[in-house]
């Protein structure tokens, strides 16, 4: 395919902004609208845009497929790990209150970690889905 200059320039300008906005949605999720799921989807949209503009092979060089599997499971491990941690500390599963020194700090830390896990898993799973569908005709 002939490289398209306009798309390349605009994509290079837009992709960092999309990733920045994804991080904003991720870490602002406990003050405003947002959260892990939305941030993960926005984050993966940046990579999907990259692979649409620059080609599937280049995108798979940036994020190899075995990394995506590791990341998708890592998010679940973080989520479950927070739950197990609160079990170890003597509370119920996902009882955030025990994670910090007082209730507010504990809830804050807990929800942040859980949302981080959700975000990582959703971003990786979206990219796995996209690569699975986009690379269907190759093998």
């Amino acid at each position, binding site marked *: 395919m002939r490289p*398209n200059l*306009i*798309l390349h320039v*605009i994509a290079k*300008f*837009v992709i960092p*902004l999309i990733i920045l906005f994804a991080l904003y949605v991720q870490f602002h999720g406990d003050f405003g609208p947002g959260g892990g799921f939305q941030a993960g989807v926005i984050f993966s949209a940046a990579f999907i845009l990259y692979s649409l503009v620059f080609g599937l092979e280049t995108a798979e060089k940036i994020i190899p497929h075995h990394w995506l599997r590791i990341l998708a499971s890592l998010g679940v491990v973080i989520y479950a790990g927070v739950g197990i941690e609160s079990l170890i500390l003597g509370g119920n599963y996902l009882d955030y209150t025990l994670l910090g020194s007082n209730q507010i700090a504990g809830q804050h830390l807990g929800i942040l970690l859980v949302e981080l896990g959700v975000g990582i898993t959703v971003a990786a799973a979206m990219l796995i889905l996209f690569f699975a569908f986009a690379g269907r005709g190759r093998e």
Partner: protein
Amino acid sequence: MIIDILSSIFLLVGAALGIVGGIGIHRFPDFYTRLHAIGITDTLSALMILLGLALQAGWSIAAFKLALIFVFLFFTSPTASHALAYAAQHSGLKPKLDQK
């Protein structure tokens, strides 16, 4: 008072442009004319609506966020139109011409 009137004018113009684009996408005969209808109106429509909202918001963080949204749309929306037209031309879609 004046700001309210100005902002409602902006909002109405923006909404009218959006509706015009929608009618165009519904009524025009083929892909390129439809793209022409929506590709031109939507950026200006977004500018007008965001300007109207920014006048309501005043000098605040909300106005700054609206300006950021506008910058984002200003770059992406013409690029999306360009990508659509380029892809259509690349795959060999011919414009529908008047048969005489």
